[in-house]
């Protein structure tokens, strides 16, 4: 069944990204307009808008399953692409689409359900001989059972919420005395966030790499992988920089891990694009973590090294087409790195930085790709996540990609909000990162100062402060004409003059 129209049940850069491919394929696109960002860029890129600006209930617009289903039926739209986040991995939404004969661009609701429950997913991996970390077979009964399990597994252990994600409901425990307290913390957190307090426990790999494999599978049983993504540069389990290929993998290990990823996808009856996440230990042993049943934020790095448009393949698979390539035809060429640019204050513990983007100067060039949903005048609201852009750099090899990244970041300026660009500069300055020698502990152990500034930069900033102050003083004394009277005079100066 050819898809003639798609509703993108998402916003920001991923909505724009999906619309680009849909437009190239001659598919009509629909976007959802909300009252939270009625002037957002993604709305201009859509062919048609669905108006959700009127609030009907307390459910956030992009999570309102029945409202979205009703809109799709009303406008007779063929398919829905959920992007990432929101309803992308919600089995209820996928099932409602199936029931209403709406083509959900993703895997089946059953697969989403099975992979979303970590206990089920792990059981499936175990049955298919994919290596797993030692841990509890199911969810833990209570805290004292957790202590017994931890003694068997050996410390350190990690307690994880069965329904958790994004770092919530997770605690690393180093010694028996802490297990009970940490169990209660994580379990309470999960009960509040996911309405499910159930926990499991497993062996904690101290300094692993986070390696994930991109899977592409059609509805005819063909499953291939498109290589790996290295996602070890993280802060509190949030990825910040991703690259492909990983500096830690060679062909042998790539084949081995790739086959394990394919085995899991086949076992669950997967179709569409998906991602199998592994932890990789220093001794090259790897462990299955989870499968993400959606397009990932970091998909562009895979697109750049494989030359394949992942969104296009997702749409074609949803239409029932067979994969146009075999595993042997997939060649990883060159190296790609993605930097997530978030509106966050790196110098204050990455706290969100709200405001209006006043000015942007984007880097431009042949090997530079920017995926973004913001432009000058865009408002950073507290309603959505803080990512404002992805800077993706391609090079013939890792060294060249790193060099190009440094150059691009020098030309990338944003005025009006604090961003993680200063963090990206700091990472690129780090010797071990440049050597490819890092793991998920990079931010906590290696890069202890999360931003980069040369000594002369502080001096120049100091000069600018003093210069501005001296000018204010001169103006106050009438030595220079004050063109912006009232605007530049500080209350402090005013007090002085009154005296």
């Amino acid at each position: 069944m050819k898809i003639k129209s798609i509703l993108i049940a998402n916003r920001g850069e991923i909505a724009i990204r999906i619309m680009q491919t849909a437009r190239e394929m001659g598919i009509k696109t629909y976007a959802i307009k909300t009252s939270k960002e009625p002037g957002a860029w993604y709305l201009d890129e859509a062919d048609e808008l669905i108006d959700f600006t009127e609030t009907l209930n307390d459910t956030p617009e992009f999570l309102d399953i029945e409202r979205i289903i009703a809109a799709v039926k009303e406008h007779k739209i063929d398919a829905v692409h959920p992007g990432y986040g929101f309803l992308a991995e919600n089995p209820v939404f996928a099932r409602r689409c199936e029931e209403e004969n709406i083509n959900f661009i993703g895997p089946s609701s059953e697969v989403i359900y099975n992979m979303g429950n970590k206990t089920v997913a792990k059981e499936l991996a175990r049955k298919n001989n994919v290596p797993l970390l030692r841990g509890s077979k199911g969810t833990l009964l209570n805290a004292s059972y957790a202590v017994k399990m931890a003694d068997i597994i050996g410390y350190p252990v990690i307690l994880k919420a069965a329904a958790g994600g994004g770092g919530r409901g997770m605690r690393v425990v180093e010694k028996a005395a802490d297990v009970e307290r940490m169990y209660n913390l994580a379990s309470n957190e999960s009960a509040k966030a996911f309405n499910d307090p159930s926990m499991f426990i497993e062996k904690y790999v101290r300094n692993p790499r986070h390696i994930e494999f991109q899977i592409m599978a059609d509805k005819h049983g063909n499953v291939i992988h498109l290589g790996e993504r290295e996602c070890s540069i993280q802060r509190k389990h949030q990825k910040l920089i991703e690259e492909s290929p990983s500096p830690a993998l060679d062909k042998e290990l790539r084949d081995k891990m790739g086959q394990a990823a394919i085995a899991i996808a086949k076992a669950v009856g997967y179709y569409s694009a998906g991602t199998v996440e592994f932890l990789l230990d220093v001794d090259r042993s790897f462990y299955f973590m989870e499968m993400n049943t959606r397009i990932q934020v970091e998909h562009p790095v895979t697109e750049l090294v494989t030359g394949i448009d992942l969104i296009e393949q997702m749409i074609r698979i949803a239409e029932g087409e067979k994969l146009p390539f075999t595993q042997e035809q997939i060649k990883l060429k060159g190296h790609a790195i993605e930097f997530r640019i978030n509106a966050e204050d790196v110098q204050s513990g990455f706290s969100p930085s709200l405001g209006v983007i006043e000015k942007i100067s984007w880097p431009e060039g042949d090997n530079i790709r920017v995926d973004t949903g913001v432009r000058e005048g865009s408002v950073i609201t507290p309603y959505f996540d803080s990512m404002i852009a992805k800077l993706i750099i391609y090079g013939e090899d890792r060294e060249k990609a790193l060099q190009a990244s440094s150059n691009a970041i020098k030309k990338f300026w944003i005025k009006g909000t604090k961003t993680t660009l200063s963090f990206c500069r700091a990472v690129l300055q780090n010797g071990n990162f440049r050597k490819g020698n890092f793991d998920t502990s990079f931010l906590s152990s290696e890069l202890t100062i999360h931003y980069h500034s040369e000594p002369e930069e502080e001096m120049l900033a100091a000069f600018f402060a003093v210069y501005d102050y001296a000018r204010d003083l001169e103006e106050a004394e009438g030595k220079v004409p004050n063109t912006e009277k009232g605007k530049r005079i500080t209350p402090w100066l005013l007090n002085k003059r009154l005296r």
Partner: protein
Amino acid sequence: MAEQQSGNSKAKLTKLIALSSTQNEYTFSNPLEKTVKYKGEKLPVKLYEDPNGFSYILWKNKKYPLEIIEKKQNKYTVMLNGVWHSFTVETPFSLKRKKFLEAQEGVSATVTIEAPMPGKIVEVLVEEGSEIKTGEPVIILEAMKMQNEIASPIDGTIKKIMVRKNDSVMKEDLLIEIDRD
């Protein structure tokens, strides 16, 4: 009197000091002349704005985008090349006075823990008078759906607890005072 005041102002104009939050001192003898003496070199700086609305400082043939993001009396926060720097601008006299006052106070024996972000107190793990080691958790704060442990930055004794379980706190609200060992 009037003469004297104008004389003071002149002194201020000829020499100003930026004291950074990182405790570095930068002295500029006449900032309005736009020359900077740094590491024994005296070099000109240029300030300009491009048509796109970005302000730059040009120094040693390198341009750095910059803006003042906060200005309150003599307190400045300047964003330069994506990193912010905080300063107080001082005259030689006010700096001397500031240092004198700080020396009078001495190194504070009491450390105050503030809420790093707005949220709700889930648990207070210590009592007034209890001993605490660096890195030991004192409070659990729930914020942005995460339960965060707040750890003691020093070895010491809990002097005062200002919050209770289930209290809502704002960023920088005082939580606990600890006496240094």
